[in-house]
């Protein structure tokens, strides 16, 4: 197993309606990533792209369409996805491209353009459901997340205001992110006063739909050291897919996230995640999901994440800064790109380049996580300033 590091990162602004085509968005993220590594495209051995449903862009074989915009002209090229978990998974995919010894460098790009799906991309999500048993019920994402949030609240006796506090924190953090779509200074009361989308989910507990792209450059040890003084090492990767039949699962706790996390932690030699991880970027498309995922990531005991949040543990200057970027709630949610944005954030935080968002102290290790499919997949990447074991 070769050691692999992230040596460059870049992203576009996340916004409601980008004027660029999907190819252009991909390149607008790839270019700054290459520039930050001081590399040219001809130094890249392979390109890995993550992009979730083709239905948003109204494109068939979206990966093929994106390929030249991603700089994959005459290069080995793969497009992978696991729904919303894609952004973090794509880094795992590129990690084994390089770790296997087949390639020395990899460019990872995640792109999503949701605004071309009119009148609202929510309609495209209907096609993720089973066409016989579920689609006739006309479900949408708000609907199933309301079920899951309710189950989570009921199981552990969590109050709605504790969940609203996630929106307040993340949207506040996003005010410091130059690429953010929805940074805001809010109170818990503001969140609870916003429209109820599907009880108990309020509008301000939901991430927006966005257009955007993010990119990172990966390299094996020797190349990484030659090119960068401060490579950020990939210490562990993990991913796990649960059964299709989400209705048969206890929605109170994401077991698949736990399994993915332990796969990554074992690789990283982490035994006590709560003590050995300095920053977390869990997936937060809905406010409760951040708490839910922190528990799956073993960073809070089951049902206890809301209390730790209320105690300020997860604030940017807290004991365990969580989503210092502003997350999907604040920066925006162009599905696959949102997950890779979290990897970019860890890269900048661990190099001390996160500007106004920089967490205090000297963070040595962070974890990024994404989630997707039918409340079904967990993807986890552990990154750190120390070489992998």
């Amino acid at each position, binding site marked *: 197993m070769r050691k692999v590091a992230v040596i460059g990162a870049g992203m576009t602004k996340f916004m409601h309606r980008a004027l660029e085509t999907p190819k252009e968005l991909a390149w607008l993220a790839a270019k700054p990533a290459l520039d930050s590594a001081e590399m040219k495209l001809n130094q890249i051995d392979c390109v890995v792209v993550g992009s979730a449903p083709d239905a948003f862009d109204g494109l068939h074989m979206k*990966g093929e369409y994106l390929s030249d915009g991603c700089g994959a002209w005459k290069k080995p090229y793969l497009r992978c996805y696991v729904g919303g978990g894609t952004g973090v998974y794509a880094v795992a995919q590129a990690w084994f491209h390089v770790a296997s010894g*087949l390639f020395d460098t990899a460019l990872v790009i995640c792109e999503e353009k949701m605004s071309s799906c009119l009148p609202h991309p929510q309609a495209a999500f209907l096609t993720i459901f089973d066409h016989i048993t579920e689609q006739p019920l006309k479900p949408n994402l708000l609907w199933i997340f309301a079920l899951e949030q309710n189950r989570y609240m009921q199981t552990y006796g969590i109050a709605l205001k504790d969940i609203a506090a996630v929106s307040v924190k993340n949207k506040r953090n996003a005010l410091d992110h130059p690429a953010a779509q929805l940074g805001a200074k809010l109170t818990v009361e503001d969140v609870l006063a916003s429209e109820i989308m599907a009880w108990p989910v309020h509008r301000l507990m939901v991430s927006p739909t966005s257009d955007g792209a993010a990119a990172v450059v990966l390299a094996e040890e020797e190349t990484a050291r030659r090119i960068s003084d401060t490579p950020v090492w990939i210490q562990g990767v993990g991913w796990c*897919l649960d*059964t299709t039949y989400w209705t048969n699962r206890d929605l109170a706790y994401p077991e698949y996230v736990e399994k993915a996390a332990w796969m990554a932690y074992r690789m990283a030699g982490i035994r006590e995640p709560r003590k050995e991880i300095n920053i977390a970027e869990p997936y937060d498309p809905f406010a409760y999901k951040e708490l839910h995922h922190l528990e799956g990531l073993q960073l809070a005991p089951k049902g206890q994440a809301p209390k730790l949040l209320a105690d300020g543990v997860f604030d940017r200057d807290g004991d365990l800064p969580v989503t210092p970027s502003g997350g999907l709630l604040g920066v925006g949610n162009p599905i696959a790109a949102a997950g890779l944005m979290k990897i970019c954030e860890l890269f900048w935080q661990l190099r001390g380049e996160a500007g106004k968002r920089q967490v205090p102290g000297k963070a040595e290790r962070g974890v990024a996580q994404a989630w997707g499919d039918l409340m079904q997949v967990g993807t986890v990447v552990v990154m750190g300033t120390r070489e992998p074991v």
Partner: protein
Amino acid sequence: MSDRVAIIGIGFTSLQPSTPHASFKELMFEAAQKAYHDAGVEPSEIDSFVTCAEDLNEGLSIFDEYTPDQLGAVQKPMHTLTQDGLHGIADALMQIRSGIAELVVVEAHSKASNIKTPEWLLDYALDPLYNRPLGFNPHALAGLEMNVFLHETGISAEQCAQVAVKNRTNALRNPIAAYPLALTPMYVESSPYVSYPLREAEIAERADGCAVVVLANEKRAHRAQSKPAWVHGVGFANDSATLESRDWVRAEYVRIAAERAYRQAAIQNPRAIHLFEVDDTYAYKELQHLIALGLYSEPAEAGRSVEAGETKPDGKMPVNVSGGVLGMGLPLEASGLYRIVEIVLQLRGQAGMRQLPNARIGLAQSWRGVPTTSGAVVILGAE
């Protein structure tokens, strides 16, 4: 390669024009069960899974959602690749060589008979701004490409027709082929033009089916129940997705992919390979791909070679003994895995009526169809 990887199990359904008796999940279950049985593994031992699928072909978004249960992959690593099955083989190989998995399963399938308007669907693969508004049938791209290919290489339309004759005849000896037919060059040459100079009989018809392949690292492969087929080399590449800037004569994606695969397999002269299973979605494509694989000193030789019967099963360089996709049917993303299935059967000596003598190294190559320039190459060996 240093860390050796082998295919230790294959499972597949027969290819059929339609499969009203089975859902895609049932096709997958059948193929997976056969593959696990062939390899002598329990699904619980498998470390990681890959599914090769395209959302719009499935009629479902985020296809990996619908894979774990029938593959025995619940709460295991699994992801989708929107590529051909051969890319899936490369993906599995990389997972094994990186050390995170010992046993990896690659699945690809086709339920093409569910697609009511396949050409319309392909329309959505065209650039939405520059190409789609022109409103042409995507087969026209193959017609255009064939025209410039014939013009530049000096290969004749009659020679392309010979490919269709050879492959559909070969399929007569393949019990899982969907479109075997003893046909004459006359039949092909009198079929109507779909897009000049491409004729209807030179276009592969779609078929339903599923193939599952089990890959293992060296240690695990030695314990396998079946005879392992070793992966000597893999390569994959894209040319330009943009119609206006690609190479229309040469299959650059194959040349680049093959270069990598040959290097890994330490093959100086590709003619040393005993059998080839290459993409023949359109008859001329077989010739274009063989040229890109570096098998001829000049392009025109590809035409003469098929005419002389060199690529027939009893020729010097057998190509598509299985019948190719012209004879077996085009199972969308599973096309590459059916090429792998044929090579593994040949290497094991289990190819029945179409068994070649001395088949010890075989090459599989795939292309993702119009309008893509995406292809992969995998070289397998018995030792």
